[in-house]
């Protein structure tokens, strides 16, 4: 090949690389707006807010956000989550600090403090079957007016709910659940906010991220864009409003 053509090819390649570099820099500037400290993230949350919090018995819960909620003493919170974990862990810390006025959960049995506050009337508890709870959250995030489920038929769960027959089978109409904030924990978050999760720490996290006005994410590792391959992104970046910086 004539050297002139080879030279031209190099110039072209260099131009493309430069352009990619510039675009990445623009992305980087964009993401800087998304990254917040835990202090600033929690400062956005007012007393009385409704929070969806990820985690199953504390596994996959955004611990640093919980700690900061306790430090800033955010009161009168409504918490929508699978469970109330155990004292000293995950949502259990909010219960310990007396910051939860209402919990919508499937299970509080492994947290004696949550049981005590419920019996004492300090914390209202709305118990929802686990599969129904996650579907009510999903319905909201997916723009559905509710879900029809057979779970709860013939039990106290059906009290006050509409029963609907479809193809001869009965279902309960369960309505969507919406929150002001979703507090999510991911395993990996890239600079843009793409998320992936690890093992059983996934649970409610990728569902709640879609059902709140504002989604705030803590991640075990914050990684460069591209490190989470497109096939492995579970939560796409546009769903994430803030990534909490790792200290």
């Amino acid at each position, binding site marked *: 090949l004539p050297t002139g053509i080879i030279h031209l090819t190099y110039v072209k390649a260099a131009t493309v690389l430069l352009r990619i570099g510039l675009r990445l820099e623009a992305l980087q500037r964009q993401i800087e707006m998304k990254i917040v400290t835990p202090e600033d993230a929690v400062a956005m949350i007012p007393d009385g807010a409704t929070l969806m919090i990820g985690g199953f018995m504390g*596994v996959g819960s955004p611990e640093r956000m919980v700690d900061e909620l306790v430090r800033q003493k955010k009161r009168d919170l409504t918490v929508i989550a699978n469970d109330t974990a155990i004292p000293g862990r995950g949502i259990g810390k909010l219960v310990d600090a007396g910051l939860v006025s209402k919990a919508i959960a499937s*299970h509080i049995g492994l947290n004696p403090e949550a049981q005590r506050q419920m019996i004492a009337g300090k914390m209202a508890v709305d118990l929802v079957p686990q599969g129904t709870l996650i579907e009510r959250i999903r319905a909201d995030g997916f723009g559905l007016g509710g879900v029809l489920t057979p779970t709860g038929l013939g039990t106290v769960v059906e009290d006050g709910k509409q029963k609907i027959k479809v193809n001869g089978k009965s279902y309960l109409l369960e309505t969507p659940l919406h929150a002001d904030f979703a507090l999510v924990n991911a395993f990996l978050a890239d600079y843009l906010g793409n998320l992936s999760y690890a*093992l*059983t720490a996934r649970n409610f996290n990728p569902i709640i991220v879609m059902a709140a006005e504002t989604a705030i994410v803590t991640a075990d590792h914050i990684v460069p864009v591209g490190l989470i391959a497109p096939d492995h992104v579970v939560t796409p970046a546009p769903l994430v409003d803030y990534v909490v910086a790792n200290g």
Partner: protein
Amino acid sequence: MMTMEPSAVIAKRIARELRSGMLVNLGIGIPTMVAAHVADDVRVFFQSENGLIGTGSIPEEGMQNPLLTDAGGRPVMALPGASTFDSAMSFGLIRGGHVDVTVLGALQVDEQGLLANWMIPGKLVPGMGGAMDLVTGAKRVIIAMQHTAKGKPKILSKCTLPKTSERPVDLVVTEMAVIGFPNGRATLLETGPGVSVEQVLAATEARLTMSDHIQPMCV
């Protein structure tokens, strides 16, 4: 003969109900023990409803991963071929009839196989967790429980505690008996090791239909 613990009798007997390729969900307590009694040549997929298929046993000290736990939040191992997923998928598996067998504990079971296993009003209100979805959606529901509680029968003519589902269970295994529900009626199928039919009847409040071939439990 060495006498076996009641929980071991129950877990061993239920393990014999499981076949290779089945997707199985075990509740906490005696149901969890079933996994340890599955025969070596039977390859079952165990689901933990927090988002895992391929649940293994408890890891050795120092080998736990804090992000790999069972539905009680305890560290577990994952077997080769395991998969993880979110809670919507997990309960889609359960409610959608993809779980072949669920093994659960019980407070009470009645003559028609209706189950109460999630609350004692005024005393214990832990929440139903995944129990209502499991009983409603699993292809087969097996109850693992001691036959009586503090000497009082748990198999009653009618449950006095709030029910878990309107769907009846398929099999009840206690240390004293195996009870099925053909035609919607509690039927004695097997008696436990060293237990007579009369002893089962004395410890059961529900009316039991007698199977034509009551057999000794094989454990």
